């Protein structure tokens, strides 16, 4: 990843005709080669921002440049550089997969053999080679998304804008999409701007992300950095009671030991042990083990859970993204938030 800024957005505002402020003065930069994300609930202003950045919607105020081109003055140059996958899977159901891609390529001013070879290659990459000559209307949801993604890649864009690319996909198709996106970013160096309401998607894919709510950026950083901002990991321990001592006495002894450790922020009684909030859990664990060894308290289990982006969202907005997500995707329970 280079240090050049590929996208700069300064004080962007979008007010709809009815007075709604969909985007309320946001500023951010995306570096060349970065996997950048907007994480937020429905209605946060994510899609509106993408529409403005991809020349589909005129901004109310603010400045945007992409690869040095001003959005308002050079939309044509920008369209050459970008590929956009919108929230709706916009493939023509009456055309075959290949025809969809060929049309997209023609509209991107590619022709003849060059286009044909590029399309063949991409169909293979997204695993649609065998289905290439079937009508897209007969594809599964995951196949349509992959075709849509392949369409955005025909003209070898420098930046990809993906607006909730995995919404509505089953876990398996979602994983496949994640693999493609990662590989595009890592192997081909394509800068990706992703919007999502899925915590684990942002967490897994993004180098850096903005958490957005009500048209504003409420937090910005790497997923790890943002979670660390929470300040503490939750470490749950259980102990073996030493000979003659009760469970309670062991807990008291353990608390005493913990109070000598500077990393500990807080200790709470858990069901059959203790939950410790400590900074940098990974570094803290060896410290914890050594101290307990010294005090002759035997640990049975240690369970570290790092704060999730949901905790970050909660901290900055006072609400959770997750609630809505669970309603929308009930099958996703246990899909590895931590």
């Amino acid at each position, binding site marked *: 990843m280079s240090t050049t800024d590929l996208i700069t957005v300064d004080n962007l505002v979008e007010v709809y005709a009815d007075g709604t402020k969909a985007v309320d003065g946001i500023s951010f930069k995306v570096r060349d080669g970065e996997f950048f994300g907007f994480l937020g609930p429905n209605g946060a202003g994510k899609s509106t921002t993408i529409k403005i950045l991809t020349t*589909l919607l005129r901004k109310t105020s603010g400045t945007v440049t992409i690869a040095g081109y001003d959005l308002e003055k050079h939309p044509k140059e920008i*369209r050459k550089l*970008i590929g956009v996958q919108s*929230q709706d899977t*916009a493939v023509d159901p009456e055309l075959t997969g290949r*025809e969809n891609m060929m049309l997209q390529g*023609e*509209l991107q*001013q590619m022709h003849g053999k060059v286009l044909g070879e590029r399309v063949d290659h991409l169909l293979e990459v997204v695993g649609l080679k065998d289905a290439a000559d079937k009508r897209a209307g007969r594809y599964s949801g995951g196949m349509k998304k992959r075709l849509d993604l392949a369409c955005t890649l025909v003209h070898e864009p420098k930046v990809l804008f993906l607006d909730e690319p995995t919404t509505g996909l089953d876990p398996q198709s979602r994983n496949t999409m994640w693999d493609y996106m990662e590989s595009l970013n890592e192997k081909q160096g394509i800068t990706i701007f992703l919007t999502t309401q899925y915590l684990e998607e942002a967490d897994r894919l993004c180098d850096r992300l903005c958490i957005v709510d009500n048209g504003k950026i409420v937090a910005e950083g790497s997923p790890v950095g943002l979670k660390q901002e929470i300040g503490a990991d939750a470490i749950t321990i259980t102990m073996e009671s030493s000979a003659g001592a009760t469970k309670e006495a062991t807990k008291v002894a353990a608390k005493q030991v913990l109070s000598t450790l500077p990393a500990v922020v807080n200790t709470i009684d858990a069901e059959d042990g203790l939950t410790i909030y400590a900074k940098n859990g990974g570094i803290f664990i060896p410290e914890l083990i050594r101290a307990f060894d010294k005090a002759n308290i035997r640990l049975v289990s240690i369970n570290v859970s790092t704060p999730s982006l949901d905790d970050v969202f909660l901290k900055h907005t006072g609400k959770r993204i997750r609630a809505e997500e669970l309603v929308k995707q009930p099958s996703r329970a246990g899909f590895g938030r931590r």
Partner: protein
Amino acid sequence: MTLLWDTRNLFIRALKKLTRNPILIFFSLFQPIIFLVLFTQLFHDFNLLPGFPPGVSYLQFAAAGILLQNAFSSALQSGTSIVDDLNSGFLQKMLVTQVARPAILLGRLLTDACRVTVQSIIILALAFALGFRIESGIPGFLLIIFIIAFFGFAWSGISLAIGMRTRSTETVFGIGFTLSFPLLFMSTALVPVSFMPTWMQDVSSVNPITYAVNAVRDLSLPGYFSLSAELTALGVIAGIAVVTMGATLYLFRKVVS
């Protein structure tokens, strides 16, 4: 150059869609065929009435009207295609490419002109089987097809504009239906102008359908051809085309920006 190429590609796309979903060609043919088969029987003896062109069968007279009626209602459905593209997100997908913007409309309009041409040939073939003849021969036939396609092309713009404005297929159909019948009956499509009450004659004389119908009819009846009537009709259609294209482009700009 880009504009021509993009128009060609989008024209091909729409043609492919049309041939894979040919019901769209035949859907609107139902009504003209009913007119052609039943109306001409029902009003068979109209030609006995005073004011009717002497020696002309009702079929020979009404075919022009039925052709234009089909072109009109078919054209007024063309907006449904852009509604589909708007709502599916396909239009947006096109707009983020380097496509020449007007090509999106032109490709559409050319396809609709093609559709009307195919429909008109089907209607003409059926009319021919029933005894209809074009007195001016092959050149007349070609000119008739051209006038009808141009007429359809001109009105398609209105439908596209309605489609872009309302984003609703139902509204496009509804408005098309509401417009086509009154305008049809207040034109010379089905009866000679002398059959109408005076006020309707006035409406008919400013009704663009009348001009197109007369131009086509003059080519099919013996001894009616007049160059000035043909040119007037083409002028009127061109005028409509300018107005509807203007409205369509204006609304399209709003959608695009």
